[in-house]
């Protein structure tokens, strides 16, 4: 029996889809059977991020409306063993799948998978309620901006209200140069405000855009720091104890000297 995770955020554009694609891909690389569900019905994108857009025949709405069996709608990723995608419908609206249908679908599918990751639509409307209905665990994605953190706080409150307790946080697009200058909130600032457990931080990395352009998950890029952190997050989900990437290594010589001299304690 698999575990169902929903990957969510309040604000759009913070990296939910990229996170779903990369964490899911690496879980499959680590030998797990993984299903990615795109629950952003009406605005699907997980398929293009994964590079599987050409292979869609049926989608999640076809499944719940009985036009095909769930297994017929699953797209197998040929590059990674045990990785599957259930795409969203592009033509329907967010209410095309009800919370009950989502729940039943997840119950049925989790018999065949170790991990099901649901890519949630942004916002707090019906689409959000539908996407979280079948999940047992939640991952909240935010960036270090005031708007994203505020909306993340709202989402954490809502998850609690829907009895998805102890969500984990991923802080995306950290720019260590700006953190050093004091122009970007650091990890501790955000954790102090949101007070939830940290699952990982992803440095801002232009390789994400390059990978997404090609439809290849960045997690397979050995040299990408963002890819490295996505690999770490996947391992943490499997229960491995991997320390969160620190800003230390990014300080450079001067920063390390300052820290050594105790000048850097702000």
């Amino acid at each position, binding site marked *: 029996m698999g575990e169902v995770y929903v990957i969510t955020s309040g604000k759009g554009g913070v990296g939910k889809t990229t996170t779903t694609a990369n964490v899911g891909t690496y879980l499959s690389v680590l030998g797990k059977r993984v299903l990615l569900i795109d629950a952003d019905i009406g605005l699907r994108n997980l398929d293009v991020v994964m590079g599987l857009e050409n292979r869609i025949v049926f989608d999640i709405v076809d499944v719940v409306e009985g036009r095909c069996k769930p297994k017929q709608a699953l797209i197998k990723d040929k590059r990674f063993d045990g990785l599957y995608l259930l795409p969203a419908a592009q033509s329907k609206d967010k209410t095309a799948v009800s919370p009950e249908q989502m729940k039943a679908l997840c119950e049925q599918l989790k018999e065949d998978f170790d991990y099901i990751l649901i890519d949630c639509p942004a916002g707090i409307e019906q689409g959000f309620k539908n996407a979280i209905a079948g999940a047992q665990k939640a991952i909240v994605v935010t960036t270090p*901006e*005031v708007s994203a*953190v*505020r909306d993340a*706080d*709202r989402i954490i*409150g809502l998850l609690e209200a829907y009895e998805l307790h102890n969500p984990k946080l991923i802080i995306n697009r950290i720019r260590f140069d700006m*953190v*050093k*200058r*004091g*122009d*970007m*909130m*650091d990890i501790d*600032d955000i954790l*102090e*405000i949101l007070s939830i457990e940290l699952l990982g931080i992803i440095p801002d990395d232009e390789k994400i855009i390059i990978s997404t352009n090609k439809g290849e998950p960045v997690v397979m890029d050995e040299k990408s720091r963002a890819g490295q952190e996505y690999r770490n997050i996947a391992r943490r989900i499997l229960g491995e104890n991997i320390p969160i990437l620190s800003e230390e290594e990014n300080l450079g010589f*001067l920063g390390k000297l*300052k820290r050594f001299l105790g*000048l*850097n304690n*702000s």
Partner: protein
Amino acid sequence: MFEFFNKFFNKQSSKDIAKERLKLVIIHDRANVSPELLELIKNEILKAIQKYIVIDDKLLEIQITRTPSEQKGEFVPALIANIPIKSVKKTEILNNEADD
């Protein structure tokens, strides 16, 4: 180096401003208190207080802030009212009102 100079000139960095603003806005979000609701509360308090005290209602301030709770490091929302008093109404008036 930047932070050193910032400290030297006592300038707040933009991340500190962001953090302060976020804390305040999230307290309002969590308490679900709108500016309209605050205005209503303010008017009710005014009415109640003006029975007994003359106050400067233009300077009355009411807001939601954070106060440290008993537990160390925890902050809880608090309703703070700042009420400038002009004078206390004479006691005989109060007594007369009570007699009526």
